[in-house]
């Protein structure tokens, strides 16, 4: 929005002020994330600049601590399996939701979306109470189910969004050429909705990867996840090792963000070709 020729001096002043305000807001958004990364390389255990020296000792701390490594390992295991469960169930449900109109569909949709609406503390407490009865508390299986539950709405939403532009005649064409429903699904439907499925899966993974409140309720000291370990670390003492973990988590987020952005661009490009 360049300045039109008829702009007054006041307009010009406002234009500059507005941009300065916007810069400050962007700085507010990004600085807290940028600023803690260098601190994880500080040679001294302080959180101030200028840093006295550069060191990888806090990363060494992380990778030599069985506690942290167990958390990392559990987070990966829980994240992968929760993502698998959420992606399969969520994709099937999204296909069903978009396939036909039927009574009670909006109620069903509300139920499928509800895990992201219900306050997480209530979800966690409910699951703790319920899982305790069936012996799932303190187990990785319990965490997998719980994390799949809160990740699944994202899969439903992203896959539904992809299906909104889906041409169902392609399925009919596949069927008329003699493909059985399963073959049509794997050869036609799935490749076309794959960007949505992958995006949903990434959302489900990051939801599980970052999830803390359910882990506080369900995890035990032996079966903690990375955020759970970080949480107890922060409450004891804000150590530089935590900065190292935070930095690695931020880098993971950047990686996922880039993948999502590439997926979005790809699907936009595809949509550009076939309007």
């Amino acid at each position, binding site marked *: 929005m360049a300045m039109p020729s008829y702009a007054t001096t006041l307009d010009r002043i406002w234009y500059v002020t507005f941009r300065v305000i916007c810069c400050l807001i962007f700085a507010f958004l990004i600085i807290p994330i940028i600023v803690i990364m260098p601190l994880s390389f500080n040679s001294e255990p302080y959180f101030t600049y200028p840093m006295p020296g550069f060191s990888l000792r806090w990363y060494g701390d992380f990778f030599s601590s069985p506690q942290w490594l167990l958390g990392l390992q559990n987070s990966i295991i829980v994240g992968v399996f929760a993502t698998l469960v959420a992606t399969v169930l969520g994709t099937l449900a999204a296909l069903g939701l978009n396939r036909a109109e039927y009574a009670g569909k909006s109620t069903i949709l509300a*139920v499928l979306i509800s895990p992201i609406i*219900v306050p997480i503390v*209530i*979800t966690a407490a*409910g699951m703790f109470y319920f899982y305790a009865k069936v012996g799932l508390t303190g187990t990785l299986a319990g965490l997998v189910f719980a994390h799949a*539950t809160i990740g699944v709405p994202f899969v439903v939403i*992203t896959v539904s969004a992809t299906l909104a532009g889906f041409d169902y005649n392609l399925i009919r064409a596949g069927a008329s050429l003699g493909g059985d429903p399963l073959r049509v699904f794997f050869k036609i439907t799935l490749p076309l909705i794959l960007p949505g499925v992958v995006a949903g899966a990434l959302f489900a993974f990051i939801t599980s990867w970052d999830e803390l*409140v359910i882990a506080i309720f369900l995890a035990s000291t032996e079966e903690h996840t990375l955020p759970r370990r970080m949480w107890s670390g922060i409450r004891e003492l804000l150590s530089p090792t935590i*900065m190292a973990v935070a930095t690695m988590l931020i880098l993971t987020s950047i990686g996922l963000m880039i993948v999502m*952005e590439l997926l979005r661009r790809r699907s936009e490009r595809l949509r550009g070709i076939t309007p």
Partner: protein
Amino acid sequence: MVATTGSHDVMRTADGVPLKIKLRRAERMRKVWAIALVAPLFLFLVVGFILPIISLLALSVEDPDLTSGFPRTAEVFQEWDGEGFPSPEAMATFAEELSVAERGQFGRAAKRLNYDISGFKSMVKKTARQSEQLALLPLDQIHDGFIKIDKDWGDPAYWYAIKNASSYYTDYYLLWSLDLQRDQEREIVGVSPDRAIYVDVLLRTIEISFAVTLLCFLLGLPIAYLLATLPTRISNLLLILVLLPFWTSLLVRTTSWLVLLQNEGLINDLALWLGLWNEPQELIRNRFGVYVAMVHILLPFMVLPMYSVMKTINPWHMRAAASLGAPGWKAFLKVYFPQCMPGVAAGTLLVFILSLGYYITPALVGGPGDQMVSYWIVQNMGQTANWGLGAALSCVLLLLTLVMFFIYNRFVGVDRLKVN
């Protein structure tokens, strides 16, 4: 499907079935398939999510401690009308059950009685130690026996507290979560001021959520507008500055604010160096810290829906308004802003709904006076193990969230809930 014209002028398919019936059958098959595809997830969520939450909320109307600890006492006290003192027979039943009660159940029942009157637990314990002699006393001396052990047994309020805990279904916890209780006439009255904290907590939760939503709106509006009006190439780059916080873990971002805002933190260092203030200021463990961290975490949820709506608004509308003589601010308010309303509604409601349930961030950067309902739910479920009250507070929080969600659904639509 090949349609042929049959003898009665009915369209038929190749196998002779009328087309209408065949179509209806195909339509029905499609519906069955659709439902069959949704069913696994639906069942998964009903069993693994809805059912646990309902069973949790049900705890708020159950009062099992006394009825399982002292079942016969609970039964006889329920028949007592609550006037004056219970009958000597009822007291004898209580004494007898005290002498035979198992330890765990006894502890839970005593703890439950302590909710009503603090100090009741130790009084019941003391009584239980001498309950064997107490149970042997003749009926006309039993009340005096109780009073001899502890003079407070002469106060009808203690006996009434036992009656209050003696029915399995109760509104006790729900009332408690709103700082209310029933007096001896079964009238609903406020609890004593030193116990009345939950209405404050509820109001504070709404206040913090409201303030965070307003701040997010004020900060989100300019940058959403800027992103929507810049050329796509530049706005895509700037969008990364919104998306990166969105993708970064809540715990990491809260940690960053802890580091930045603490007394020896970067903000204080910078301000001291610049001479903004002369000694480190308290920036965390107070409301300021909560607002800063929560606004930072929720701002992307405000910007993204507003941006996606603003992107669709034709920039020529503003030019048209200007050419008709409207000053910039007036053109924005009268022409541009009304068109943003779907995005504004989506953003503000989403941020408000998400704020209501916040726990981690206030717990880390807030002080004791900044904790929201979620914190007290965790406290009651964890440390104090008062599941009834925790469940009652959950009911209140869930109700509030659902009301907001219905408003969201009405004005924005659940199918418009987008994540990217």
